[in-house]
């Protein structure tokens, strides 16, 4: 049982480039989330989805886009990368929005924009 799988694990982008961070879960969870984690800061919600075809903005959505065409996949798109997007990105999923059993997180993607 893989849980939440994120690819790639590491990436270096040049300013202005674009990329997609992949996230797949095999637990049939309806809810999926993208967070970023900066040193010394709490996790910040970028976007979330309550089911296939439904997405919504979180706390820090600017510069990002998402789609949710299937229950399993929730890719995060970075357009025109900027140094401020240097961070560690985590994808998470949960069965319910009430998160009674917590979120299951992926192992993260460390992104550097130079």
């Amino acid at each position, binding site marked *: 049982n893989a849980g939440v799988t994120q690819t790639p694990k590491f990436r270096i982008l040049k300013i202005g480039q674009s990329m997609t961070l992949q996230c797949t879960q095999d637990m049939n969870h309806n809810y999926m989330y993208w967070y970023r984690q900066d040193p*010394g800061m*709490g*996790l910040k919600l970028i976007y979330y989805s309550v089911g296939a075809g439904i997405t919504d903005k979180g706390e820090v959505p600017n510069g990002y886009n998402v789609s949710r065409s299937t229950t399993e996949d929730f890719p995060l798109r970075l357009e025109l990368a900027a140094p401020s997007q240097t961070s560690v990105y985590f994808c998470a999923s949960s069965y319910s929005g*009430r*998160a009674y059993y*917590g979120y299951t*997180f992926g*192992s*993260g993607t460390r992104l550097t924009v130079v």
Partner: protein
Amino acid sequence: EDQVTQSPEALRLQEGESSSLNCSYTVSGLRGLFWYRQDPGKGPEFLFTLYSAGEEKEKERLKATLTKKESFLHITAPKPEDSATYLCAVQVMNRDDKIIFGKGTRLHILP
């Protein structure tokens, strides 16, 4: 404004030296409080959910407690493998049920 504050930022303990981590919160309405463990280079791993004041949860050397304003994560006789960053998060009771994470406490257990 809804807030979650964890203290201390970092804590170094000798193996076997018990201590507590604090998570204080100010929210309009608490739906639940969560504790996670995060190892370097990995995603957070869920530990506990607490829902109401007075509630306690235990797992091995860890015990989480909840009051109306804060939660404690007690670590009894810790071992080096307990070294990690411990994150606290609260789910706010409103239409969005948003979750706010604290900045974490880095715990280092010396052998």
